[in-house]
């Protein structure tokens, strides 16, 4: 029997199952140490010390989002009143981390913020754009995909967004230590991508022709007037120059 087809369905024995159920509720911030002790008996270390694992769990959620979405956090803290604490607490309760990689904890943050705003919470729209940008930037940097001249990696190492605020500019300023409280409202398209030369995540403001060139490279059918063909080729070369696309062979 090979590793891949051996069943892995054995269930933990009853005593352990009871333990996991009670303790998991605490580290998912849904129960306190008193609840754990009611279900399992007293900890020899005392209730308060047992509850430290709930404290740790909450702390870890804050650390994960602070590390992955620092500009989002900055903007949330700059609001009056600051909403970061409340935002993370509510998000963590509703979205227990569902991936072994702690960075993936931020995956649902933008959608959560959008939904909360839709429900009347006073979260400005740029928070969800910031959360989306920071998470997407992380994703394109680490995703296990090698682009080729034929397959540039659209939706994998290249993501196209339309933001209503200058999100890349805000994040760049934040990293340079010269950021204001909120991004400037400035609707534009953004390409978030892994530079094919350095492998680092970057962003780029494409022209409409640049977007068309990207779509063409990704195999999308486009109706381009003949007189625009050379302009489209130039736009494609521009994307190559910025490391968005791998250069492809061209006839002279």
């Amino acid at each position, binding site marked *: 029997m090979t*590793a891949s087809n*051996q069943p*892995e369905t054995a269930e*933990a*024995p009853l005593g352990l199952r009871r333990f*996991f159920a009670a*303790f998991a509720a605490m580290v998912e911030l849904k129960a306190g140490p008193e609840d754990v002790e009611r279900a399992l008996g007293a900890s020899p270390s005392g209730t308060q010390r047992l509850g430290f694992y709930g404290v740790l769990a909450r702390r870890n959620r804050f650390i994960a989002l602070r590390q992955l979405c620092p500009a989002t956090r900055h903007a949330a803290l700059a609001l009056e009143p600051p909403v970061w604490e409340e935002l993370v607490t509510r998000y963590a309760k509703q979205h227990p981390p569902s991936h072994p990689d702690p960075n993936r904890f931020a995956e649902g943050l933008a959608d959560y913020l959008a939904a909360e705003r839709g429900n009347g919470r006073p979260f400005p729209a740029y928070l969800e754009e910031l959360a989306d940008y920071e998470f997407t930037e992380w994703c394109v940097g680490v995703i296990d995909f090698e682009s080729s001249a034929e397959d540039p990696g659209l939706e994998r190492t290249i993501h196209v967004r339309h933001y209503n605020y200058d999100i890349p500019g805000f994040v760049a300023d934040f990293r340079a230590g010269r950021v204001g409280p909120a991004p400037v409202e400035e609707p534009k398209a953004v390409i978030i991508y892994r530079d094919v030369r350095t492998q680092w995540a970057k962003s780029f403001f494409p022209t409409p022709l640049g977007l068309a060139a990207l779509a063409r490279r990704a195999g999308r059918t486009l109706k381009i007037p003949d007189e625009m063909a050379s302009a489209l080729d130039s736009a494609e070369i521009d994307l190559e120059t910025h490391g968005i696309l791998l250069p492809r062979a061209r006839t002279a």
Partner: protein
Amino acid sequence: MPIARRVTGVGIGLRFELWPALRETERRVDWLELIAENYSEHGGWRRRQRDEAAARWPLIAHGVSTSVGGPDALDVTSLLRLKRLLDEMGAEFYSDHLCWTSSDSHHYHDLLPLPRTDEAVRWCAARARRVSEILERPLLLENVTYYATMPGSVLDEGAFVSAVLAESGAYLLLDVNNAYLNAVNHGQDPLDVLRRLPLERTRQIHLAGHEPDEEGVLLDRHGAPVSDAVWSLFREAIRRVGDVPTLIEWDNDIPALDRVLDEADRARAIQTEELARRAGAVQTSPAP
């Protein structure tokens, strides 16, 4: 599965913050530890970094999410991806923690302790054996920090770790800092806690710094230099364990590379001194 001891000396963690300086350094680095999940699941700059590091230093992979003691079915898909990474690295063994990290497909990103019961011993041992089978290499399990004894526990830490390793055939990744923290946080003698672990099965050692929280509980933060008390305990460990690779873990508030390498130099000096003393003791001991 016996372990060929190819990697020796003192390593440091391959961390994003240290990488630019690491590429340039001419100081001695015996090996690098990488967090396996960061490289088995990811490509891009991480793969490039791994390949560049592997060209210069031996690498050891260490995991944080196998959840050997956990309730969820082992994630065979992830383990097979991990195996591919280990194969590419030519890894002789794999290590993770004797703990649980997930339940009901929720991942806590914490190394959670288990109730130390006979039931948990059997459960962990069976899963550890299975992980080792899937990865087709020996498994090392690390003694973790516990801030509270779990309700229902009937074994002490040393007895629990010993029983799991004996029943599973796994080896010990001895975290000296964790042993020290557990002793202090639970009012025990650090040397006694160390002695009760199955030291004869040790195949690697971890060293790290710790910090007290507001209530005086020592936290395993990996964000400070190794304390003098842990250096002393490390010396005791080397006397008993002998020559195994040792890692300096510095994962938070990471300082300049030279500061981390100073810690590695200190560990190497202690190792060299104690191994020489051991060799001398062996050579001068009277024939039976």
